[in-house]
């Protein structure tokens, strides 16, 4: 893992948001598919996007969202915290 502490903090905030929505889970590995497992669903994805925006300091364009960027913490990190 080569990410800087700042980047780790960002993705950990995303992880923390997902875990906060699922009281039955205490950990979330970086490679778990969060859509297939329904950890994020069609209504909560927008909250995921807001969380990523706040954690990364960037604005995400809703009209050009690539769902592949949101499959797991790994893909989110590559797309928004690299």
């Amino acid at each position, binding site marked *: 893992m080569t990410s800087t502490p700042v980047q780790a903090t960002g993705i950990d905030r995303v992880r923390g948001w997902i875990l906060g929505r699922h009281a039955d889970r205490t950990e979330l590995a970086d490679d778990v598919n969060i*859509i297939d497992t*329904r950890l*994020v*669903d*069609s*209504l*909560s*994805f*927008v*909250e995921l*996007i807001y969380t990523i925006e706040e954690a990364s300091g960037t604005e995400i364009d*809703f009209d050009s*969202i*690539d*769902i592949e960027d*949101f499959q797991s913490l790994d893909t989110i990190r590559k797309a928004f915290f690299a």
Partner: protein
Amino acid sequence: MTATSNGARTMPAVSYTAQWMAAARALETERDDALYRDPLARDLAEPDGFRLIDRYHGGGLLPFISIRTRYLDDAIGTVLDAGTVKQVVLLAAGMDARAFRLDWPDGVTVYEVDHGPLITEKRRRLDALGAVPRADRREVSADLTGEWLPDLERAGFDRDRPTLWVVEALTFFLTEPQVGGLLELLASASAPGSTLAFDILGRALLRSPFSRPFLETLAADGTPWIFGSDDPEPFVAAHGWRVTDLREPGEPGAGEGRWPYEVQPRGRRGANRLWLIRAEVDR
């Protein structure tokens, strides 16, 4: 178009979703913290409703259906308590059992409009259950894609008296021009003091890539979800109605405490909207 596996009785695909809605109401009814109770729903959901619950597992769908049902129940109560409206039209009523489960004031007539095969099948089931309506309930078999107001008037509907129209879970099956035309048609048959209670989905929600698998399943089953708006007041106003109450799930009076998502402020970019609306005819 037919879509049930019950070969002896086939119903069009939108009726197929009526069973799905009934199954959702049955599941709500069986909760300890149910927002309403519909004891007939389980029988009205057969044979496909519960299978469809599994097939259409979109995020938030079940709580939304329950919150919407309760919101419209409350809207009916609020409007009828005022005492001036005595005729209620449940448009595309599906397997709605409100005529059997709500406390209706004296003198209220409830019209359930849907297409013939559904009305026939619903009657058969309700008769078998010995269900007794709690209002003057009138079935109106009509083709909602054609001229259906004359059918409603033949059943006793009086356009010169104020009406409460309940249009639940219908607008998203239509195109935007069709929804606009429907609102205008209802307005044209609405005496002053008439109210429309209904729901509109958000446009962003229907365009979201995260909704796509769910929406593709619906489309493949012949019931695509089409119309949505992220700014419903101007749309409603442009078609003859003035919004008097607008809520989203999770707000007070709209399932506060039951909605598993954050309520986003109006205007927040990209938010998923689900609008619950009461409007008065603008005349």
